């Protein structure tokens, strides 16, 4: 898959590094500042294709900031400044000439609070595809059905597609938001605490959905819930605030290792609940 052609619009000569075939996302010595505040410090990691990576750590350690680096959502904060390399399929996403809209289409995002648009379920799902120029009714119908099926929501809403996206339960709304992301056929889905506003049953449904989706998508999830990270992810990154209050990557490895035999004492203390 060559994203060079699609997201780099103004700079065809941009240097494309060839990432290993299964590395989708990569950070190399990445630093993020909000004005004078050093939010994320020296983070380097590779995220593999079709895997689920969980980012865990105490509040304020830079988890969400780190997640937002992958699709440049931090650009929306005027004082934000990024150093280092953030790559998607070997392309530096912060280089000049990147089409950020295209990047965010391919690296979609689900937020903490379900945020359906105040419109029908149907229109919520086809909002993105319409924006990207799809007008054909039959094509849109197909996208809506396929996306809702993928988001494990179809059976619950197929008879009320014209009802408001805000009329369904919180868990259903979050799956609707996931369907909305899936409708634009992303490759990566970033999830920022997608279950923190949901009840346990809805949470388990989303987790189950993530597992299913990981067969086709690369998922990165920020979560406060360590059991969720343990249940759902393949890889876990543990972040912590250093002495200078900047968020640092303490340990990154297989989830099965991190939760049974972490290498770093700080990780051990955090996941056993002895600090944080």
């Amino acid at each position, binding site marked *: 898959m060559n994203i060079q052609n699609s997201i780099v619009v103004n700079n065809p000569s941009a240097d494309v590094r060839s990432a290993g075939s299964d590395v989708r996302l990569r950070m190399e010595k990445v630093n993020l500042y909000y004005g004078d505040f050093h939010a994320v410090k020296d983070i380097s990691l590779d995220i593999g294709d079709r895997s689920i990576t969980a980012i865990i750590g105490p509040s304020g350690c830079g988890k969400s900031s780190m997640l937002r680096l992958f699709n440049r959502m931090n650009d929306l904060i005027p004082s934000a400044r990024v150093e280092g390399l953030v790559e998607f399929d070997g392309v530096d996403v912060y280089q000049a000439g990147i089409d950020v809209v295209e990047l965010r289409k391919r690296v979609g995002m689900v937020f903490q609070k379900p945020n359906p648009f105040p419109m029908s379920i149907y229109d919520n799902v086809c909002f993105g595809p319409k924006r990207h120029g799809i007008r054909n009714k039959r094509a849109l119908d197909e996208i809506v059905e396929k996306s809702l099926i993928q988001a494990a929501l179809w059976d619950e809403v197929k008879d009320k597609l014209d009802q408001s996206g805000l009329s369904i339960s919180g868990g259903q709304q979050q799956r609707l938001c996931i369907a909305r992301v899936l409708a634009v056929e992303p490759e990566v889905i970033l999830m920022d605490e997608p279950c923190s506003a949901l009840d346990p049953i809805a949470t388990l449904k989303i987790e189950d959905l993530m597992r299913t989706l990981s067969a086709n998508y690369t998922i990165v999830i920020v979560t406060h819930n360590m*059991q969720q990270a343990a249940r759902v992810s393949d890889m876990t990154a543990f972040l912590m605030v250093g002495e200078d209050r900047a968020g640092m990557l303490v340990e990154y490895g297989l989830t099965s290792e991190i939760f049974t035999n972490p290498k770093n004492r700080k990780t051990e203390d955090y996941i*056993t609940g002895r600090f944080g």
Partner: protein
Amino acid sequence: MRKNYERALKALQDEVLVMASMVEKSIMRSIEALKNRDLELARQIIADDEAINNKRFDIEEQCVELIATQQPMAVDLRIIIAILNMLVDLERIGDHSEGIAKITIMVGDEPPIKPLIDLPRMAEKACQMLREAMDAFIGRDVALAKKICDDDEEVDALYEQVFRELLIIMAENPKTIKRATRLIWVAHNLERSADRITNICERVVFIATGHMEDIGASKY
């Protein structure tokens, strides 16, 4: 930060020590009963084994409850999983002692075929290994755990010696075969007990390092 949880985890480990000391007592008393032909004591050991079995179930329940309610992770999880395995070995060592007590009852007042010297030494060595295994467990002491596994060779050597001696006695006087065979069973129970202590030591290494390895490959 999680005071009640930490207390429960500590209490769990204390309970394992209590169970290990019950088992140690059972080993020593089983040999004492055999040596002194004390059938009363032998019957007591058999009855007391139930307390060991119950202790095992109690601790196992506590483990299950901690897992279900506290979702332990990392070293805490390893401690609990290790304990679940150690309980099986401790309980079986208790059964080996019970086995010796049953043999004592079978022997009854048959005349002895030889003075018991090496069997008590095997029992003492096994008890020492068990005490040290508990020290290694509490101290997360990998070096000590591995040393105990090496010590198992001493028990194996004593077992071999007892076996050889009894074979000679049987060869010289076939009338001793029944009595000598019973003593071989006793030696076998002690040898197995020591092997199970090396299993416990492997779990100690797992707690400390997160790795499962076969350290005490016994000769028998």
